[in-house]
C-alpha cells in the first residue's frame, strides 16, 4: 500500500505551489529510492552513495541559503524537505541537515569570500560532503568547555584534540571543526587528507544505522591560515548552525511520526483479532486518535515556526520548543505504533521500530530534550539551571 501522508488540517494547503512541488519530488524520491533500500542499508550499517548523488542532483542541499550555487529556498521549504526525507529515515535527513545547516551554513555565514566560492557550489550538488565537529567525548551538552585546541604556528594552525559522534565524519571531504584558539571558540575548515587528521567510523549503533557516525582525531593536525572562519567568535558560531538544524528536525520528526501513523492505521484496519479488525476496538482507536491529535499540533507548530523563520521574527527558544515537542511526540507515536503492530512491530518489514530507534538519537542530538527544557526554563524565569553555583 502506498504512503498516505496524514494532514488532517490540510496544513500543506498553506504552502506555496513550489513548496508543494518540491514536497512531491522529494516524497516520490523517498518512495522509489529510500523505502525499498533502507532496511538493507540499516542491516549493513551504510549510507548509500547513490542517496548522496540523488539528493545532490535534486538540488535540495543547503536549501535556504542563497548564492554560490545554493537553492535559495524558504525556510519553510527546507522544513518540508526535512519532513519528507525523514519520513523515509532519520539517517537520510541527518545527512541533509548536517550538510546544509551544520557544514554549508557556517561557511555561508561566517566564511571568507574565497571559502564560500571554494566549497559551497560543490557542497550544494553533493560532490563535496561536509561534517560538523562540536561534541567531544567529555563535552556533549556542555560544548563551551571543549578541550580541542588550535594554536597559531607560522603560516598555519595546529589542531589537537578529538571530536565524537560526528555525523558524515568518515565520508566527509571537509569538516567544520570548533576549537579553542587562545581560549576563544573558533571555526576551522579541515580537509580530508590534512596531515594529522583522521576520522574513524563508530560502529555498533542500534539507531541511525544508515547514517555514518565518526570520531574526528587531530594529532598535530596542520592546516593553512586561510582555513579559519573569519566571521565568528565564541559559542554563537556553532549555536547559529544548530538553530537551523534544529528547525529542520522539528519538521523532520513529523515525517517519522506520519510514517509510523500511516503504518499503524493500515495495520489496525487489516489485523483481525477476536473476529474483528483491531481498529474496531476503542482502545486502538484511542491510540490512533491520539496520534492524529499530536501530529496535527506538531504540523501547525512546524508550519508557524517556518513562517516566523522566513519573516526573521524568531528567537532560539521558539526553535527549542518545536524541536523538543515534535521529537518527543514522534518518539512516543513510534512506540505506540510499535505496540499496535504487536509482534510484527519488531520486524523490519514495517518501518516503525526503525523510526523508534532512530528517534532516540534525534531526541539526544542537537540539544537533548532536557537541554531544551532548560533553555525554556531560563527563558521563563531568567535563571539558568544548566550548572550549579557560581
Amino acid at each position, binding site marked *: 500500500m*502506498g504512503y498516505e501522508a496524514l494532514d488532517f488540517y490540510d496544513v500543506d494547503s498553506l504552502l506555496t*505551489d*513550489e513548496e508543494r*512541488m*518540491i514536497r512531491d*519530488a522529494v516524497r*516520490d*524520491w523517498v518512495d522509489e529510492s529510500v523505502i525499498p533500500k533502507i532496511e538493507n542499508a540499516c542491516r549493513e550499517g551504510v549510507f548509500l552513495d547513490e542517496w548522496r548523488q540523488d539528493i545532490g*542532483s*535534486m*538540488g*535540495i542541499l543547503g*536549501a535556504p541559503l542563497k548564492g554560490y550555487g545554493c*537553492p535559495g*529556498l524558504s525556510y519553510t521549504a527546507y522544513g518540508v524537505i526535512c519532513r519528507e526525507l525523514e519520513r523515509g529515515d532519520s539517517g537520510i535527513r541527518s545527512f541533509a541537515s548536517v550538510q546544509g545547516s551544520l557544514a554549508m551554513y557556517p561557511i555561508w555565514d561566517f566564511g571568507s569570500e574565497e571559502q564560500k566560492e571554494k566549497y559551497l557550489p560543490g557542497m550544494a550538488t553533493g560532490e563535496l560532503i561536509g561534517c560538523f565537529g562540536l561534541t567531544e567525548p567529555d563535552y556533549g551538552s556542555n560544548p563551551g568547555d571543549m578541550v580541542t585546541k588550535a594554536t597559531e604556528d607560522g603560516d598555519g594552525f595546529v589542531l589537537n584534540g578529538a571530536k565524537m559522534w560526528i555525523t558524515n565524519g568518515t565520508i566527509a571531504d571537509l569538516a567544520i571543526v570548533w576549537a579553542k584558539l587562545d581560549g576563544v571558540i573558533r571555526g576551522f575548515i579541515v580537509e580530508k587528507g590534512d596531515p594529522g587528521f583522521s576520522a574513524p567510523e563508530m560502529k555498533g549503533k542500534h539507531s541511525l544505522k544508515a547514517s555514518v557516525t565518526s570520531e574526528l582525531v587531530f594529532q598535530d593536525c596542520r592546516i593553512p591560515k586561510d582555513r579559519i572562519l573569519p566571521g565568528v567568535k565564541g559559542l554563537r558560531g556553532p549555536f547559529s548552525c544548530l538553530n537551523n538544524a534544529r528547525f529542520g528536525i522539528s519538521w523532520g520528526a513529523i515525517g517519522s511520526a506520519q510514517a509510523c501513523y500511516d503504518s499503524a492505521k493500515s495495520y489496525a484496519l487489516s489485523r483481525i483479532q477476536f473476529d474483528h479488525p483491531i481498529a474496531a476496538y476503542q482502545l486502538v482507536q484511542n491510540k490512533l486518535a491520539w496520534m492524529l491529535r499530536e501530529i496535527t499540533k506538531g504540523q501547525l507548530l512546524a508550519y508557524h515556526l517556518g513562517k516566523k523563520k522566513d519573516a526573521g521574527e524568531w528567537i532560539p527558544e521558539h526553535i527549542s520548543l518545536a524541536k523538543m515537542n515534535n521529537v518527543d511526540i514522534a518518539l512516543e507515536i513510534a512506540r505506540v505504533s510499535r505496540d499496535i503492530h504487536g509482534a510484527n512491530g519488531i520486524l523490519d518489514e514495517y518501518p516503525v521500530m526503525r523510526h523508534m530507534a532512530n528517534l532516540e538519537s534525534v531526541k539526544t542530538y542537537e540539544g537533548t530534550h532536557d537541554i531544551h527544557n532548560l533553555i525554556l526554563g531560563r527563558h521563563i524565569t531568567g535563571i539558568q539551571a544548566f550548572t550549579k553555583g557560581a
Partner: protein
Amino acid sequence: MKVAVLIKQVPDTTAKVGITSGSVDEGAISKWSISPYDEYALESALSLQSGSGATVVAITLGPERSSKSLIDAAAVGADELLHVVHDGGLGSLSLQKALSEAVTRVGAEVVLVGKQAADTNSGSTGPGVAKMLNYSCVGLVSRIEAGSDGFEATRSTPSGMERVSVKLPCVFAFDKGDVELRRPNVRGIMMAKKKPIEKISLADLGVDNTGEGVSTTSVDYPPEKPEGQRFEGADAAAEVAVKLREEANVI
C-alpha cells in the same frame, strides 16, 4: 525541430476513484498526475531536446487544474506550454481535432503521446491525431532515436523487438520504455514557475464539440473479485494443478 508532447492529467494511480450516478466523482480525487505513458513520451521528447536540440512543446487539454501537469513538464525541462482549456466531457473526435489543431498551431512535425491514458484507456488519441494531421503513426513505441532523415523507433512485440524507420512528420504513441524518467530538481521547479502557459479555448482552435460518433454512457466499478479457494494437504495437489491449468490458465 519542434516536438509536441500531448499530456493528459489523470487521477494518480494511488488516488481512490469513486463513482456517483454513472460518472467518476472528480471532486473527490485527492491527487492528479501526468498519465504514466505520457511520462515516457515526455522523457523521450526531453532526450531529443538534449540530443538534437529539439524544442519541446507540452500540450494538454482539460480543465484549469490540468495546467499543473504542464508546470510539472516544465519542471523537468519542457520549453513551451500550451493549455487548451476545456471543462467537462469531450468526444474523442473533437479531442483529436483540437489536439491536431494545437499541434499545427505550435508548428510541430513530431508528436509524442502515451499509447493510452491511464483513466479512459481508449488508446485512440495518438492514431486519431495522426490521421487528422495526415502524419505517419507508430504505436507501442519504447524508444526513438533521431536519424539523418527521420527517426528510428523501437517497438516491443510479444515475440521480440522491432525497429522501424520513420519519416517526418510523424506521431509516436509510447509504451512503457526501459528508460529512466528524470525527476524534477529544485532549479527546474523554480524555473517552471516563471514559464508562461499559453491558454486557449476549443473555439480558438475552431472546434465545436459536436458531431461525435462515440460518447460514454456510464461507468461502473469493476465486478467484485470472486472469493479465493482454499486447499489443504498434499492430496489436493493434483486438483490444484488442474485448476491452475484450466481455470486460471497460468500453467
